[in-house]
């Protein structure tokens, strides 16, 4: 399970980095989205990849403190998702404005001369 999650994070982030380095604004925004998925997963697995264990332990039944799901990374990941969603939406607006003003979707606002 750890291996699959780690590979997933690696593939998402790697493709995101490649896309960010591309010259078209649309590729850049997709790259940012992919990296933010990878990062969100990364935060999530900081609470360990384990299933079927509770986040709230019952003190009456002699709880095992080495086995519980950490709820904090889940709260963090929610915050991170909301923030990256909002900033990506904002970037989309700027991207469209740049497209409208410069007439090209190159990140520098002008096509490179060959």
């Amino acid at each position, binding site marked *: 399970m750890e291996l699959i999650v780690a590979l997933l994070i690696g593939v998402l982030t790697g493709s995101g980095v490649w896309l960010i380095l591309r010259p078209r604004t649309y590729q850049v925004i997709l790259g940012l989205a992919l990296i933010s998925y990878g990062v969100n997963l990364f935060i999530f697995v900081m609470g360990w990849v384990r299933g079927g264990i509770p986040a709230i332990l019952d003190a009456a039944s002699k709880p095992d403190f080495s086995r519980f799901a950490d709820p904090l990374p889940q709260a963090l990941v929610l915050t991170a998702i909301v923030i990256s969603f909002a900033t990506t939406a904002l*970037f989309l607006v700027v991207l469209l404005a740049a497209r409208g003003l*410069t007439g090209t979707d190159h990140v520098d606002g002008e096509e490179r001369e060959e």
Partner: protein
Amino acid sequence: MMMDSQLPILPVVLPLATGAVLLLLDVRRTTLKAVIGFASIAAQLVVALGLTQLADAATPTVYALGNWHAPFGIVLVVDRLAAVMVLLTTLLGTAAHCYSLARWHGPGRFPVLLQFLLMGLNGAFLTGDLFNLFVFFELLLAASYGLALLGSGIARVRASLHYIVVNLAASLLFLIGVSLIYGVAGTLNMAQLAERIPAIAAADRALVESGAAILAIAFLVKAAVWPLGFWLPSTYAAASAPAAALFAILSKVGIYAVLRLWLLFFDGQAGGEFLLYTGMATMMFGAAGMLAAQRLGTIAAYSLVISSGTLLAAISRADAGVTAGALFYLVSSTLGAAAFFLLIELIQRARPLGAEVLAVTAEQFGIDDEEPEESPGPAIPATMAILGLAFAACSLLLAALPPLPAFLAKMSMISGLLSIRPIEGEAWVLLGLMLVCGLAALVATARIGVSIFWAGGTSVPRVLFLEMVPVATLLILCAALTIGAGPVTRYVQDAANSLHTPRAYVNAVLPRQ
């Protein structure tokens, strides 16, 4: 007494509430918005002054949000450094708000964005929680994206596009760093991290240190340190004057975060050489950029790069005396840079039409050179003389020459450097670089100043009182810093001392049973 205990939360809540109210008002009610915004900023100024008083104590004041105490709740911590930064932010906010009343209030977006930016900045300076720091960073960045775009136009949109991408990517790095540190240390409270990180097992140290390094990269991108700062000159030079004045403190947020966390987590031990060398490289890059700059806006932007580099190199010495000088330098250079950014727009109105290299703004950015029909307030007399005087003061500040406080700050950094025994080779190089940067700033500003004020052929611009007052106030504040250098130096020295002995901070945040 009730108000007193709630004081630390006010710099966050006041701008948040004001921004929300301003958003709800009709966009056309510009006067009402200006008045509400100004009243709020005036109140924030009083609060910030109160905080500097409150923080001037042996132990920092801790405010537990919702009365949930650390490490379970989120805390705000007011120490001298945080209080100084909040005061500085509010001062810049006041100046930018007054300045914007003249021309930038059009549809009334500026005051809203300004309030949200102030909220993000104040929160970032006050928070005692690593993830909360991320949230406030995002808030101030979101507001700054809007401010960078203010006025629209091709140059601004193009520069903002790069600015947003770079900062979004840096924010993602921030998240990776935070989660790595959380994964190993199991807490996000800064004080608790300061306790746990030195005690971490050797096997996990590499993980924590790489987490901290990734975090540092995110901060250094924001501080525009070489080679992560290529986005800064174009963005800041393209931004509208009041927005650029606020951006003067934006790059200092990164420096603040490095200073605070590095001393708290690693006690200034790990990675000092890295900070020193990147700082010195940034100073060289800034000086070269400044000498090559053709436009006033670019010169001002590179002066921020230089001040970032100087601060980083100075704090990397991990010595309380040098840090105190660096804090003084931070305050004076930020005030000076903000005044310079505001002044630039006024001066550029004077440029003749032929000098388009120097005056790219105007028609491209959608501001007409034509006077608006109903101009808010009278124009100032003897315009060129006053502008010239202000320009001279700004260039003295950038070049760190007497009698303005940047000189005192630089002197106190240098004397701090020379008092560390034995004096290492790096210290001499750093000292030389500081002087060279000052010289570069002087050459660059003098060259462009001569062509504007003495070469003739420029028309006299119409400058309103409303626009000149904030510039003059910022410069007078700088002069006041020189006159009152004694108490100010004492304050920053105490701030630096408490930064270098983080025990008091940790004990204040985490109460012992």
